[in-house]
């Protein structure tokens, strides 16, 4: 096996250019599981932990190499909340934002946050940098718009960030659990609300009808909240698998979105 350990972005892109078959490695929490279980054993690895540009977090740009541990102690409330629900301290010390995006699991915990904020994914290649809206980057389960030779540089959040934001997750334990359903809600003082849910569709989705309903009211009534919950349950399209049934996920999505919204309303 050949490994390159670049210290900057141009070195990383050179590595991918020279070895198109290379596997990129960040924290290793997904890649090494596959290796340990003998699922894959790539010939060439481009290891990204030392790439300075990826470890940058400047205002609205969060580099792909930023770990969950850094998100946990960062300034964005919902991002900190979701980071705390990922794995254990051992996982959060090394697992990265870019890894969550690149793996593109339907249950990825950063993805509802990025979708709720309408974040862009920033991609770098030898041809330059391009930005894609989150829903043009995430195309399906474990499927992204990343092209060969391209690297996830990070995410760009919009200038305006709602102060009211919350994340919640249902799973079989408090910690160390892949989401059965996860949810992020952000809300502005004028009522404008965005709701994103994961693990209930092929990729993270926005509950547009529910958003529209609840955005129209400054102080949503109990009846509105009931209807919000019902709409969310209707808008998701979950499957049954070893973690939960379709019916459970549909029910849980509505309950979770409502509770997450209620937390926004009281902050």
């Amino acid at each position, binding site marked *: *096996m050949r490994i390159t350990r670049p210290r900057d972005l141009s070195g990383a892109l050179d590595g991918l250019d020279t070895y198109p078959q290379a596997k990129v490695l960040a924290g290793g929490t997904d890649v090494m599981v596959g*290796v*340990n279980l003998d699922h894959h054993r790539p010939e060439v*690895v481009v290891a990204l*932990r030392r790439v300075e540009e990826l470890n940058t977090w400047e205002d609205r740009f969060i580099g792909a190499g930023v770990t969950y541990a850094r998100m946990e102690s960062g300034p964005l409330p919902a991002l900190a909340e979701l980071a705390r629900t990922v*794995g254990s*301290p*051992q996982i959060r010390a090394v697992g990265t934002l870019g890894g969550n995006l690149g793996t593109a699991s339907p249950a990825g915990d950063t993805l509802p946050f990025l979708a709720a904020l309408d974040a862009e994914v920033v991609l770098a290649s030898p041809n330059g940098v391009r930005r894609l809206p989150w829903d043009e980057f995430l195309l399906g389960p474990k499927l992204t718009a990343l092209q060969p030779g391209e690297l996830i540089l990070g995410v760009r959040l919009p200038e305006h960030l709602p102060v009211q934001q919350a994340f919640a997750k249902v799973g079989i334990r408090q*910690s160390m659990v892949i989401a059965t359903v996860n949810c992020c809600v952000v809300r502005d003082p004028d009522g404008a609300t965005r709701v994103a849910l994961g693990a209930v569709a092929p990729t993270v989705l926005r509950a547009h009808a529910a958003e529209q309903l609840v955005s129209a009211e400054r102080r949503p009534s109990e009846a509105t909240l009931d209807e919000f919950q019902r709409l969310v349950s209707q808008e998701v399209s979950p499957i049954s698998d070893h973690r939960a049934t379709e019916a459970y996920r549909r029910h849980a999505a509505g309950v979770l979105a409502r509770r997450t919204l209620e937390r926004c309303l009281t902050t």
Partner: protein
Amino acid sequence: MMVTLQVNGQTRTAEVAGWESLLWVLRERLGLLGAKDACLQGECGACSVILDGHLVCSCLMMAADADGSRVTTVEGLAEPTDLHPVQRSFVEEGAVQCGYCTPGLVVATAHLLEEHPDASPDQVREWLAGNLCRCTGYGAVRRAVAAAQLAHVADHPDGEGTS
């Protein structure tokens, strides 16, 4: 390829095949059997070590990517003839049954004392969420951690860390 690590304060080199984990290299190349090989998926924490100041699962760290790093394993927490305060509290509380998870729990707890010595009981539970014991449960472990925290505070009256 050749990998050089600072393991428990000593420079160690090992010939490493592609895709070997740090855990494999510690155990099979360097003869350090403290970190345990169990789930190999980052679920159980039995392979916990401290890498460049971070608590990590060594099974998920590619050895070739750890080249040049500092690693502390359970063998390096104290001098060979002595016990680390966390090891002592685990012994005194009997926080061991089969012992397989113990090195990981001890390393994770030792790192907790460095990073968050005044962690509340809930924070301790959250910190150790990724260290599984399948023998009995965690009551004695929690008592051992609490005792280690008290000993740590007594040893560091002005609140500084141990390193």
